[in-house]
Each structure stands twice: as C-alpha cells, then as structure tokens.
C-alpha cells in the first residue's frame, strides 16, 4: 500500500492540477480535430459578429481586437522573455504618431509609411532596450515606466506631434481601390491583424528564438552556458514587442483619424499588462481572453452605472486570487 503510493509519487511527482472546469475544457485541445474545430468556431464567430450585433458593439469589439494585438506583443516581452515593461504604450504611440506625421508631412501614403513606422518603433525598442537589458527586471520596470512617460510628454510638447491637441485629419487608407472607412471595415482589418498576430506568436513560441526566451527567463546562467546570448535574445523580444505595438498604433491612428497624447498614457500600459497577466503570461489563448475581458468587462457592466468599475476591479481581484498565474491553465503537467 505504502509502496504503491511511493511508486506513484515517483512516477508523477508534479503537483497534480485540480480538475477544474477550465482544465476539462482545455483537454479538448489535446485532440487536434477538436482543436481545429474550436479554431474554426472562433473564426466564424469573429467573422459574423458585426452582422449579429450593432455598430456600437462592432466598435467595442474592434477595440478588443486592437488589444489582442497589443497584448500579444507585450506577451512576447513579459510572458516569453520575462521582462517587466511598464511603458509598452510608448511603442503603440511611436507607431501611431509615425504614421500620422508621415501622412501629414509627406506624400508617402499610408502603406508606404508603414515600414518607416515599424523601423521607428524597432529603433525605439533598441534605444530603450540596449542600455537597460543588463539591468535586473525591477530596475527595467522603472526605466520602461520612465520611457513611457517621456514619449507621452514629448508628444505633448513637440510641435510636430501637434502638442496637447494631437494630430487630426489622419487619412483613412485605401487598398486596391477599396477605401477603408466604415467601422465594420475597420473591424475586419483588426480581425485580420489579430489573426496574423496570433500566427506570428505561435510560430515564434515554437521556434529556436521562442525557446531561447524561455531558457533565459527560467535560468539566465544555464542559458548562457548553453551558448545563448541573453542580451541579444532579450533585445529581440523587445524589438518584436515594439513592432507589435507599432502595428496596433498604426491602425489605431487611421481608424480614429485623430490621436492625442492621452491615448498613450501610463494607464494604457497598465491595462495592456493587466490583460496579459489576467489571461496568463506566455499563454496565447489566455492573453487573447485577457484582452477581451479588459475591454468588454466594463462595457458589459455598464448597467451598473457608477459602480461598474468597482465591480470590475473586485472581479479582477477575485480572479487573481484564485488563479494567480492567469485564467488560462498551464498545458503541461
């Protein structure tokens, strides 16, 4: 009897996961057929949502999809590489302002401006990451916090960024004669961006670089001993995260047609980070879920009036209390 228990423990010494409803739900994904079916259901739901709900809901859902892109980007920095970034909105701002300024000052056109905006964001990633990635993560958090504020203050004070009033009259793009201007059209643009963001995230996670992020996050010395250049690998995470942020910012700017410094506040960075932590750092479906909860939560609670943010906050606290590593369970046991 005791022997039996001991041998079982030896075979499976990992703390067993409580068999919660979420875990059972997740078991569905172990079967590839069911997994692809689930993906198809989600894609169909995303495709028909604007037809089922009104225009107001479509705008909110567009915002949720923007958050999906931003959260997946921050997830690479925080979830994969383990670097706490409290100023992620800065990259979002760089993308948005770059496209707005280029649209205003040059005749490049929207699509030609995108590469410049991405390069600007990547450069910002290198500038902030290069000197600071040797710091421990708590120091890094402070530096990124400062960086986020510097970007916002610069935007508020520079002439080229339109100072406090920002930049308005950003032209909406056309693609092969299709002028993208209605909320529904933008919804589909963001849906497409989200799909690309998910595919890129999955592919990065299952790659040499993606594994290197995890190695460095778990044990920097062991990773170095395996021949991994930790500074370089972290910098790659930073730059890729900033490109995600910039892509979100670029389409955010043309969607609204106007941007101002207050769109890129510290609260914005915190909300994105919160969605990532809430859903489960490093877990793509969790991060997507987190993005939707953060955007849709306050909307769904609108009937509560003044109490809604309080109720929402208590809800978030309860989730973190019972699922400290995020809503989405870990796959491995």
């Amino acid at each position, binding site marked *: 009897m005791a022997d039996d228990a001991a041998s079982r423990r030896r075979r499976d010494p990992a703390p067993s996961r409580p068999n919660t409803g979420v875990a059972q739900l997740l078991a569905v994904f172990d079967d590839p057929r069911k997994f692809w079916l689930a993906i198809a259901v989600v894609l169909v739901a995303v495709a028909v949502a604007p037809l089922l709900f009104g225009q107001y809901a479509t705008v909110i859902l567009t915002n949720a999809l923007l958050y999906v892109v931003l959260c997946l980007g921050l997830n690479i920095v925080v979830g994969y590489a383990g670097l706490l970034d409290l100023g992620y909105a800065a990259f979002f701002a760089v993308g948005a302002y770059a496209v707005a300024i280029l649209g205003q000052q040059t005749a490049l056109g929207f699509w030609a401006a995108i590469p410049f905006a991405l390069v600007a964001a990547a450069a910002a990633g290198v500038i902030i990451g290069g000197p600071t990635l040797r710091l421990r993560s708590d120091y890094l958090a402070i530096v990124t916090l400062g960086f986020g504020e510097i970007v916002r203050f610069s935007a508020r004070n520079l002439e080229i960024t339109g100072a406090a009033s920002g930049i308005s009259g950003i032209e909406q793009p056309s693609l092969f004669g299709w002028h993208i201007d209605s909320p529904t059209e933008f919804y589909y643009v963001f849906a497409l961006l989200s799909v690309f963001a998910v595919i890129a995230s999955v592919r990065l996670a299952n*790659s040499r670089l993606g*594994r290197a992020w995890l190695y460095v996050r*778990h044990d920097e010395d062991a990773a170095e001993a395996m021949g991994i250049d930790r500074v370089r690998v972290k910098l790659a995470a930073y730059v890729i995260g900033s490109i995600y942020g910039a892509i979100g910012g670029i389409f955010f700017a043309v969607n609204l047609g106007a941007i101002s410094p207050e769109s890129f506040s510290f609260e914005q960075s915190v909300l994105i980070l919160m969605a990532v932590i809430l859903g489960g750092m490093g877990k793509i479906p969790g991060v997507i879920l987190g993005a939707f909860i953060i955007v849709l939560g306050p909307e769904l609670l609108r009937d509560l009036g003044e109490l809604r943010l309080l109720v929402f906050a208590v809800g978030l606290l309860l989730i973190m209390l019972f699922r400290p590593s995020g809503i989405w369970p870990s796959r491995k046991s």
Partner: protein
Amino acid sequence: MLLKLSDVQLRFAGNTVLHDVNFGVAESALTSLIGPNGAGKTSLFNCITGFYKPQGGSVVFDGHELLRLKPHRVTKLGIARTFQNLRLFREMTVLENVMAGMHCRTHAGAFAAVFRTPGQRREEAEIRAEAEDCLRFVGILDEKDRIATTLAYGHQRRVEIARALATRPKLMLLDEPAAGLNSGEKDELIGLIRRIRDERGVAVLLIEHDMGLVMKVSERITVLDHGRLIAEGTADEVRRDPKVIEAYLGQEEGEAAL
C-alpha cells in the same frame, strides 16, 4: 593541449581564490579535478567558462584566448558544462531542455520563424533530431516528453549531460555529476563518461568528491587545495602523494579517504 590555463589568478574582494594556477587538458582526455571543499574547483570551472573574470593569467582553448569572452561565446567555441546543483529549465520538457544545447549551432531568427522558411524548418528538424540523439546516448529517450524536473534525480543529471552534449563540445566540464547518485547509478555514470570520450571523442574534465569514481575513470588527476595546484598525475601517483594526503584533512583520515 586542448585547454591550457597559465597563471590564472582569481580574487574576490581581497580573497585570493586561485593562485597562479597552471593546468592543462589534452585532446580527448579523461581528467579529474579534485580537492577538499572550498579548494576553488568550481571557481576554476567558472573561470574557464567565462562566468568569472580572473584578474590575471590566460586560458587558451583550441587556439582561442577565453579570458575576455562571455559564457555563450565559450560554449560556441566548444566547451560545455553541467552545474553542481541541477540547473534544468523548469516547466519545460526533457526534449526542450536538451534542444537548448543546439542553440549555438543554429541560426534561424525571428523573421525565419514567423515565415517558416524552408531553412528554418530544416533547422528545427535538425535541432530535434540532435536532441533526441543525445537523449538516446544517455539512455533516457523514452522520457523526452516529460517535464524535466519531474524525472528521478539520476535521470535529471543525465538530462544535463545530454543538454551539454547537444552543444557539440570538444571538452565537457562535469561539476560533481555523481552527487546524490546511488552506487548503481554511479557505475552507469562511469560507463557514460567513458562513452562520451570513446564514442564522441569529447575530452572530459570532472570535478568529483567520490574518490572511487575518480580513481576508476580518470587518466589524469589534478589536485587543488586552497586555490593552489598541489599535485598532478595518474591515479596511483596522486594517491601516494604526501601533499595530497595531507590536504585531505590530516594524514590518517586522508589516507582513509583515498
């Protein structure tokens, strides 16, 4: 000489840990580094692998000076190591752990990963195949999909060895690989260390406290005490050296230990 240390000096805040250590490892040799606790054995490993920066001397490996290099550059040149306390990547499978070793032999970056270029897919297959080969070599391929830290202790040690092998080293530094193993596992370890040299042509430098294992497996033994090299030779020579016997806590006890 594959690895040659000349006058290596290491100090921490005025404490001299290594005094002008001169020491070498020949191509495809099985060498052990022994000495009482605190003699500076692991510090010497850390100087070779770039984790510590010695204040003086030189470390030449395969024609390259290692002294100014970061650990990952040293690994790329062909020195792999294991750690005294297991340093496996938590929450990752055995296979994923071993795949880490191939990082320095492959190149695909973010762009290749996102677009799944043919070169990237070929490389991924190669990484997986090499990792599986290393696991087969150490005899735990059937556990490749388990979370590494849930394996029996002796098998976790083998994961570390497989991971080091996957860097395709010319020299492997094993820091107390027998610690915590039972006698059966120690015998298997001796066989494994010999096979690493015989079948893979990899030189092995071993830090170990188990004298039985050291005497059986090593062709040459170097003895370190208080940061100084006090003896060097074959097992028999070292065993009879009075300075070695004295270093091991008084003469009689020392004799008993050897």
